[in-house]
């Protein structure tokens, strides 16, 4: 499903003494199949934007279409839309609630697909738990609160992907995890991307994570999209990003410092590529020197 937003505007508490304009005309298209990154500092409107994508926030002004679903249309089937656009909130483990892992994970399924038979539902839960790397038989009857932090987050994600949403949105999915937990989580996302889950959208403060994982990205600032494109393009706008209070990936920071000293390194900001480009430059210069001698 292609996501097209045009002139999206949203105001919190519109008729109160504290109206807050969170979105001021967002124009953004996210193609099917992308692993899309959304960047922006706190208060830039990124969460407000993603909450529109499965109609958690009602469209107040502008145009938003997700596949065939027109969110401006009052007759739009929101229930169906929500089963196809899954949303994993920040620290999703805080939303676990049921007595057992199995009951927690099947909750979404019970609401979205009411006509499923018991054994079909159990099979779907099993598959979702396996997808997130948990042993179904070992955890299904445990209380989700007995599990470790990383496991809890996996259960919470299983509860969203159990309906196999075509679009999966994750708000800061790796926040608070240790380095290995982060790596495993990104691997998990890549493993489901391209199958039933066609599009993945992650909101992240970690520029290296965006550079390493995303096909395209958008930078939000002051309720609008300030920059969009491939991560390598976005991170070439170093001054603009820094003025927006954002960081650069280590590779881009390093390339910028080298450029200031007259060494031009064209890198797409992925570690692998950066290493290759440095080696190529080194070998070329060394080779050049040898020729000169």
């Amino acid at each position, binding site marked *: 499903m292609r996501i097209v937003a045009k002139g999206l505007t949203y105001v919190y508490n519109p008729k109160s003494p504290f109206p807050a304009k969170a979105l001021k005309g967002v124009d953004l298209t996210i193609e099917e199949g992308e692993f899309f990154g959304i960047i922006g500092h*706190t208060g830039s409107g990124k969460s407000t934007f993603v909450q529109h994508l499965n109609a958690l926030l009602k469209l107040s002004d502008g145009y938003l279409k997700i596949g065939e679903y027109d969110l401006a249309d009052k007759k739009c089937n929101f229930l169906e839309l929500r089963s196809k656009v899954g949303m994993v909130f920040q620290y999703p483990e805080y939303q676990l609630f049921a007595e057992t892992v199995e009951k927690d994970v099947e909750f979404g399924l019970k609401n979205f697909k009411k006509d499923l038979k018991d054994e079909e539902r159990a099979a779907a839960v099993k598959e979702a738990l396996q997808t997130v790397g948990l042993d179904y038989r070992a955890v299904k009857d445990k209380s989700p609160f007995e599990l470790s*932090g990383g496991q809890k987050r996996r259960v919470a994600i299983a509860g969203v992907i159990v309906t196999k949403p075509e679009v999966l949105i994750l708000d800061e999915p790796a*926040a608070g995890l240790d380095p290995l937990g982060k790596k495993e989580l990104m691997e998990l996302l890549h493993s489901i991307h391209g199958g039933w889950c066609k599009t993945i959208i992650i909101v992240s403060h970690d520029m290296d994570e965006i550079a390493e994982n995303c096909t395209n990205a958008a930078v939000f600032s002051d309720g609008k999209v300030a920059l969009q494109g491939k991560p390598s393009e976005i991170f070439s706008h170093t001054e603009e990003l820094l003025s927006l209070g954002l960081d650069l990936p280590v590779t881009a920071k390093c390339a910028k410092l*080298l450029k200031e000293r007259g*060494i031009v390194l064209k890198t797409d900001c992925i570690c692998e590529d950066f290493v290759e480009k440095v080696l190529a430059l080194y070998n070329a210069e060394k080779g050049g020197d040898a020729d000169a001698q």
Partner: protein
Amino acid sequence: MEAVRFENVKYSYREDGKEYAVNGVTLSIEEGQFVAVLGRNGSGKSTLAKLINALLIPSAGSVKVLGMDTSDSKKTFEIRKNAGMVFQNPDNQTVASIVEDDVAFGPENIGLAREEIGKRIDFALNAVGMQAFRTATPSRLSGGQKQRIAIAGVLAIKPRIMILDESTAMLDPKGRREVMDVIKKLNREEKMTVILITHFMEEALEADRAIVMHRGEVVMDAAPEEIFSRSDELEMYNLTLPRAAAICKRLQNAGLPIKNAFNAEELAEELCELLQKA
């Protein structure tokens, strides 16, 4: 003076005493040190922190804070006055609806006089750079600002030791920078002992000393640069290098004659020298 002393400390959350979350830790932290504590989720870092300010009492062994034993319940109040703790979630640490009232909560509880409380609020808000928000509402502040208010609340009781348990985890890069700058300033200017638990390897680089926990034990204890030079060992404990250091390592492995670099600036410096020489 010794700020914190752990003597063969064990702690178990279970009644039967099996499975130690902290398993035989002996450790000494001098006053004025800035110590980063690293380790996987579940390695015992937070338990270690809670043992310091007597939120937990050791199952075996002893913990002394500024010479006071945490198992002596008569000393609990004095220990907590001297070892303040800042937690992960900024929203869970606010008690009042106005910033100055929130910061006053600690001083009020230790029974300070009204004028003194006023002075403490000034001092604490000044230290974290939030004077302008004295009468603001915490819920309307950003995450970084809220976390600075939480630090101010701890500072207002003038502890000699500050423990931060993943206090930057929920913040954006700017908020994280703000909090780190405040911590470093307090350590440098007020000589405050800082114990920083973190998953960000880059933050550990700013400390004087880094401790790695694994399955309840302290398995590495050295200067951060040294810890990050022992990458094979780190890998065993499921930790990673700071990103710049990881890139540096890959370049070294590919045969580039460069020295160890731990951040983007150092890496750029090394590469610059190399490429200009070549």
